[in-house]
Each structure stands twice: as C-alpha cells, then as structure tokens.
C-alpha cells in the first residue's frame, strides 16, 4: 500500500523533490543561462544605421577597428604575468621552504602580506608609492636622477602591481606541493652523487610541475581578465573596455553594447579553452609520492658563499618590495592631510583624523577672503560616503556569501546522497558553470539583460535604482558558487558513510542526521568558505565597477573615487589619508578573517575543549593567586 502510494501518489517527499527541481531550473536557467545567451545573441543582432539587423557587423567592426588591440594588450599582460609571477612565486617558495635562508619565517610573513592586502586597496596603495610624485618614485629619482618619473603607468605599472598581488596565492599552493616532497628522494639523489642544484632541477622541480602548470593557467586567466589594475593604472585591456562600452550609448559610438558582448564572449572562449586544457592535464594525474613513510623536507644549505649571499640579497630585496607599501600605508594613515598630500613624513603630524572625526578646512579665496569648507577632512568611519560604501559592501557581501553557502550545502548534500546518479553530476556541472565564464561576462550579461522588465523576476528592472543591489547580490552569489562547491564538497568527503548509518540506526531522521551529525562536521569548512567569500567580495572591484551607480556604490568604488576627488574645491582634503586608513581597515578585516578561518576554525572539538580546559586552569590559578593576596 505504502509502496503503491510512493509510486503513484504525491507524498511530501515527492512535493519537495518537484519544488527543488523547479527552483533549481529557475535559478540555473534564469540567472546563469538566459542572461549569458542573451549576451551571445546580442553579438549577432546588432542593427545598422537603417535599423536592419546585421549579424556580422560587430565582427567586421572588430576586424577593422582597434578592438584587437585590447585583446592583444590583455594577451600580452597574461603572458608576461605568467613569466613574472612564476619567477617571483617559485623563487619565494624556494627561498622560504627549500633553501636555508636566514630569517625565512619573517620573509614568509612579508611575502604573504598580499593575502590581506589585495585588490583595489593594493593597486591604490602602489599608486600612492610609485606614481610620478609617489614616495618611492621620489626617493628613487633622488638616487637615479635620470630615471623616468612616469614609469608607473600603463603596462609596466600593471605588470609590476599584479606580479606582487598574484604571488601570495601562487606561493601558497606551491608551498603545499614542495612540502609534499619526500625528503628521502632528495637524499637518494645526493647519495648517488647529484649536486644540490642538480637535485633541485632533476628531482624537486619535476614533482612541482603539475602544480606549476595549474598555477600558470590560473595566472594566465587572471592576467587576461584583469580589471582593477588596468583601470586604475591606465592600461587598455579587455575588461576596462567592456565596462566602458557597457556604459556608452550608440550616440557616442557604433554599437557599444554588442562590442562589449563580443569582447566578453572572446574572453569566455579563452577561459573555456584554458580550463579544458587544465582539466585534461589534471586528469592525467600528478606525481604522487610512493613512499609509505614520507620524510620531512630538510632545508638545503647553499654551498657556494657567493650564491648564498646573492640569494639572501634577492630574498630581502623582495621582502622590501612586499613590505614597503604595507608599512608606508600604515604610517601615512596616521599622518595629517598635508603630509599625505605632499607624501612627506611629518613627525609632528600624527593624527587619527583619517580614521575618525570630522574637521573643517579654511582656505583663502582669490578675492583674499578666508573661506571655510565644513567637513572637508573626515575619517573612514566618519565620512558619510565611505561609511555608506562599507555598509553596502558589508551587507551585500555577507548576504551573497551566505546565500552561496546555503545553496551549495543543500546541493552537495543532495549530490552525495545520489553520488552515482546522473542528476547529481548534472547539478554539480551546473554549479561549476560560472567557473567557465569570466566574471565580466556574467556581470555584463546581468547589467544588460536585467536592465529591462524581466517577467521571471516579477516584471522588475533589476538594474533600476535600489534594485541594482539585488543584482549585485545575485552576481556575487553566482560568481562564488564554484569556489564554494569545490571547498564544501571536499568537506563532505570527510563525512564517513558509517556516521550517517549510525545516526539512522539510533533513530535519527534524514533532517536530524543532516542538522545534528553532518552539518556540524562540515560547518567549519562552510564558515571558512563564507568568510573567504565575504573577504573577497567586501573589497571586490570588478563586479562593483560593472554595476556602479549611485545606489550601488560599493566600498571598492568609494576607494577608487578617493583617488580622483582629493582637494577639489577645498573638499575631501584628506582623501588620500582616508584611502590609507581604508587600506589598513581592509588589512585588519582580512587578517581577522584569515585568522578565524585558518587559526580558530581549523581546530576540532578536541582542540577546542583542550584550550577551554587550559583557560579554566589558568583562570583558577589566577583566582587562587588573587585570593591569596587578598587574604594577605
């Protein structure tokens, strides 16, 4: 009877399934497929001056005009970035993990600063130091008067900035790979007469090749899709051009929207090809250590004194390059507006005005009268616009990060329950779909497609006024799904099937098993994914720039605007100082999140209980001491 009902009737579980399926299709088709297909078709539906559809007009325009130069510039940046990031990334890993370099721990900390100091904050920070009147450029020009003070613009500046911005992640993955090397293989090679550098190139490096290949492909894609550095430092690559075209009209130039669409489709094609190659390569497998008892890598002394000195010099020069912006930004965030604007340290000009408080600014008009600009100097947490940007980014990032986690946890739970079935594979592929597309394509597609009344979002224009915030949340969520899926799926693998069986055997329902057994196990990973996504989105630039409008000005856009508005008509006198303070604030937020994720969040229940116990004992000891004293 029950079986018959199960087969034919609509029981609650069947209703859940139908509802789940319909929701999934709605979300996947409505917010991933349809907007992107719309972008693709818009390339071939451009209208000529007479209003006739000309399918190849944009392509003809592409071939005849200057559009290939944007592509070429992006490719040039991607190729050069691959070289510089690999050179710097490999060398810093070798210097801190493989060779015996004095002060390696401090060096490692310095090299990793770009993990908390990244994106638009890093670019504007580098600008602060290296542009034509930047602090470092001034110092360098004093040492080398012949040097070009304008060196930090265009390609050079973008390559320099992105090289150091990308190496932290590069080094992080490579470090894990090098730590996986069995030291016995190094000893075996040495035992057979190989010299240290021979061992490095013939034994160590080949085992790193698969990781290096993956990192190279990812760096190439990063270079190709670069946004904040080219925009802020003035380099004509694809992404800034797409954003520019998206905001342009046919009155200004020929079919800008279709050209933007074509550029995003080209970018998508490159990404798809590269990721397919990467996927194919990764499937071929990695070099796995076959040893049963792996020995920990012992740092190698560089035998030649000359090479040793050179390696130390190189390591510390890199350290200075990494640390200088961080130190300078922190110092200047506590300097008054005059010192910041002239980029000269003023030891009597320490202030907190870049963080909190509002001050007026008095200046002499051309008529000789003294005028006051009220509130011209304001701190990060007192400036209405900055606080508004922080608040908006905080809310949008938190909501999107949470939404991505919820969607992925529910989906992964389903995928694991039906792991050998086709529908699980389909859901997984759908969630990974945004990974294949450049962020700019998704955002551009959203901006153009939802800038109209769309029936399946209740007839609303999602780009209209405050609605853009919903659009930003949707874009943030979609873009972060693949990362969330990869991380949370890995966490689900840690759940032993027997745990679920045990819970069921003890009488727990599916929901109770999920909530009380499975979720607590994956929760640290889910929270880590939430925190990392939040961290990335909080100062996110690419999407913020694509959707930018008064109602959707995110924190990154506020930081960017600080670069342009300083001192105009006696307003925003401390914009640069506030920018420095903003960067320090971002570093603190990122640092805190990384500590919570990798420090606190990585502890299991046993470690947490042990820490609690230690604290309790310490407290009791302290109480005993205090009690003893009061008795005395």
């Amino acid at each position, binding site marked *: 009877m029950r079986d018959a009902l199960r087969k034919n009737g609509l029981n609650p579980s069947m209703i859940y399934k139908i509802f789940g399926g319909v929701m999934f299709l709605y979300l996947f088709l409505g917010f991933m497929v349809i907007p992107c297909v719309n972008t693709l078709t818009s390339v071939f539906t451009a209208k000529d001056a007479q209003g006739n559809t000309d399918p190849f007009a944009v392509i003809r325009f592409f071939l005849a005009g200057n559009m290939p130069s944007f592509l070429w510039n992006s490719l040039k940046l991607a190729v050069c970035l691959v070289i510089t990031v690999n050179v710097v990334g490999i060398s810093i890993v070798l210097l801190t993990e493989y060779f015996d370099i004095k002060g390696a721990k401090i060096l490692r900390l310095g090299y990793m600063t770009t993990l908390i100091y990244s994106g638009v904050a890093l670019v504007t920070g580098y600008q602060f130091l290296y542009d034509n009147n930047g602090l470092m450029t001034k110092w360098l020009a004093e040492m080398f008067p012949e040097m070009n003070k304008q060196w930090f613009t265009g390609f050079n500046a973008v390559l320099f900035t992105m090289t150091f911005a990308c190496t932290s992640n590069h080094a992080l993955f490579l470090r894990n790979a090098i730590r996986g090397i069995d030291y016995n293989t190094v000893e075996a090679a040495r035992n057979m007469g190989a010299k240290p550098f021979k061992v490095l190139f013939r034994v160590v490096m080949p085992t790193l090749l698969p990781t290096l290949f993956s990192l190279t492909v990812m760096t190439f894609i990063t270079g190709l899709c670069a946004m904040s550095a080219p925009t802020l430092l003035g380099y004509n690559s694809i992404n800034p051009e797409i954003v520019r075209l998206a905001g342009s009209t046919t009155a200004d130039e020929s079919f800008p929207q279709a050209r933007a669409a074509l550029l995003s489709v080209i970018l998508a094609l490159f990404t798809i090809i590269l990721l397919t190659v990467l996927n194919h390569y990764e499937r071929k497998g990695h070099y796995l250590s076959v040893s049963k008892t792996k020995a920990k890598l012992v740092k190698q002394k560089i035998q030649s004194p000359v090479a040793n000195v050179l390696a130390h010099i190189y390591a510390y020069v890199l350290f200075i390059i990494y640390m200088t912006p961080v130190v300078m930004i922190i110092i200047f965030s506590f300097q008054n507006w005059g010192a910041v604007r002239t980029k000269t340290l003023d030891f009597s000009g320490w202030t907190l005005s870049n963080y909190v408080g509002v001050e007026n600014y008095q200046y002499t008009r051309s008529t000789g009268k003294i005028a006051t600009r009220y509130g011209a100097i304001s701190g990060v947490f007192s400036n209405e616009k900055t606080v508004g940007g922080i608040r908006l980014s905080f809310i949008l990032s938190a909501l999107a990060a949470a939404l991505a986690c919820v969607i992925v946890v529910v989906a992964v739970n389903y995928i694991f329950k039906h792991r050998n079935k086709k529908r699980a594979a389909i859901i997984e592929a759908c969630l990974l779909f945004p990974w294949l597309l450049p962020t700019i394509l998704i955002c551009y597609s959203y901006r153009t497609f939802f800038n109209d009344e769309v029936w399946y979002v209740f007839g609303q224009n999602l780009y209209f006024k405050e609605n853009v915030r919903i659009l930003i949340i949707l874009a943030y969520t979609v873009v972060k799904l693949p990362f969330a899926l990869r991380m949370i799926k890995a966490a689900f693998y840690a759940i032993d099937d*027997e745990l679920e069986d045990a*819970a069921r055997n*003890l009488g727990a329902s599916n929901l109770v098993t999920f909530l009380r057994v499975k979720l607590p196990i994956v929760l640290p990973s889910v929270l880590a994914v939430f925190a990392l996504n939040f961290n990335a989105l909080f100062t996110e630039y690419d999407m913020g720039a694509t959707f930018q409008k008064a109602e959707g000005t995110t924190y990154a856009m506020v930081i960017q605007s600080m670069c342009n508005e300083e001192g105009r008509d006696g307003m925003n006198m401390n914009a640069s100082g506030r920018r420095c303070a903003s960067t320090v604030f971002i570093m603190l937020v990122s640092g805190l999140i990384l500590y919570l994720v990798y420090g606190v969040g990585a502890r299991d229940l046993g470690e947490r209980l042990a820490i609690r116990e230690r604290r309790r004992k310490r407290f009791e000891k302290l109480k005993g001491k205090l009690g003893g004293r009061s008795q005395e």
Partner: protein
Amino acid sequence: MIQLTDIVVRFGDFEALHNINVHVKEGEFFTFLGPSGCGKTTTLRTITGFIDPVSGTVAMQGKDITHVPIEKRNIGIVFQSYALFPTMTVHDNIAFGLKIKKLKKDEIEQKVNAIARKVDLSDEQLKKAVSQLSGGQQQRVAIARALVTEPAIICMDEPLSNLDAKLRVQLRNELKKMQKDFGITTIYVTHDQEEALTLSDRIAVFNKGFIEQIGTPNEVYNHSATEFVANFIGDINPLEKEIVRGMGLETGKHHFIRLERVRVNQDKSGDNIYRTEGVIESREYYGLYIKYYVSAAGQTIKVIEKNDGIRIYEEGERVRVEIHPDDVMSYPGKEG
C-alpha cells in the same frame, strides 16, 4: 533469536547473497567469517536494515522484520570505523540515541552514566571529545552508544580491524568479557580467522555469497566441511600424489593436513601411520613454536613444532615425517 531464511541480495545484475539461511541463538556470540567481498557485511547490513533483500525473510524473536525501518529494529551496531560523531563529546555520542527517543534529561543522564561505568569510561572521559580518546577507549564508547538504547542484539562490523596487532588482542579479550557480562546476542563480522576462533560460540564461514559451513570453532577448524573452509581457516598442507598413494588415500579427492598434525621424528607406534624421510629446507622462528619446511615425498611439507628449547632442527638435517590417516581431511575434487 535471529533467523535468516533464503535471503537473496542483488546489486544490479550482481547477486551478492545466494539463499542465506542462518539461525543465531539467544545470548550467542555468532561470527560471520570470510574473505573480502564474500557477503558477510552484506548479510549483516541486511539484518540491520540498511539493505533490502530481493527475497527471503529476516525474523527477530519470531517476528518478521524484513521491511521494518532501521530505527525500529532495536538492533545496536558497532561500526568498523566506530562512526563516533566527531563534533560531539563522548557523553553526547552515547546520549544521541536516547535524545532521539526523547527521553527525559534525568533518565538520559542516568542511563549514560550507568553504561559508561559498565564499559569502564570515567566521568572525565565522558566530557572529552572522541578525538581525545585512544583507539581502545573509542571502541568502548562505540559499544556504550550501541548498548545504551538496550537493543535486543548487537552487530559488530570488523570493530578491531583499525587497531594495531597488540591492542587488537587485548580488546578482543575485553570484548568477549563484555559480551558475557551483558549477555547480549552478538553478531560479529570479521575476516580474521584467529579473531573468529577465539571470540565465537559459533561461526558461519562465507564464500562468494554462500555459507560454506556453520559450526563451533572446533568444528570449522578440525572438521572443515569444505575445501574452502579448510584452506581459509588456519594454515594447511595439501598432500600430493606420492603421499596420497603411500597412504592409500582416494586419488580422485583433495587431501589436506594441518601443520600441527604432521609429526617429525616422534616414532609414534601404529601400523597405519605413514612415514617418510625428509630434509629440513628452511625454518622460521616464531618464539612459541618453530615452523619447518620439510622436503619429503616430492613436495614441501610445512610442520609446526613446539619450541621446547631442546630439539631444534638445522637446515639440511634429515628427519622422519609422520602422518596419521585420521588427521587427513579429504574433499571431493573439482570433478567430484
């Protein structure tokens, strides 16, 4: 207590269990023994309700439970990995099933404390995370969790397989003692014949989805019903042509003898004892006993001799090998 009748289990086209019939008696320690993939865990999971048989019935205390949901079968399980919930303390692990049953807080506390005392877990240990316990303590938690809900029977799926050899032997003894103390019917799955022989009241030997033999440890070891059982349980010598003919055994059959039943230089009286000359090929020293490889009658015969410290044979030494016909186990050949 538990009766499996004509149980058939299929995974797609693959038939994992073919007409399994088992009767486990009340209070018995019953072991499913066999190599990997033989169907022992599948049988256990059929009893516990994780697998639905294609045909046949599972009955407990005379009641058909074939289609009763897992949680309503009143069967406790100790899993291979123990399946302790890593995010809960030892106390919460044990109390989990009681909380699901919505027992009162006081009752839960009382039951948890009582079972903890019985399995020798201290109050201090109850507050710990399971990751802070040793392998042996974790096993006790798993047993306590399975027993606290007062199941009619308890099923254990290779609970010692993750432990090192020394701890395995120690816990084996504790397990047996605990089972006797609780007096609970236990079904135990293992691929380790030594574990099965030392722990069980009765053993079912599985092979390729069939049960080859059900019997006491002595029966399956000394009177193995099939050639598979004889080979799987303990070490054994197949007897080759020369000895078979010399002993006048049936040539169409396969004949075997246990290592400890082959005697060396013992000069036992009796006309029907088969004797042959041999040479010690090599030896392995095990402390309690010594294993010799003796080349005799055109084959190598393995022999175990108690290490009495008096007579230890050297490699190359000539010895006399003796086999009593009563000790030979014979099984039909492949054709037979």
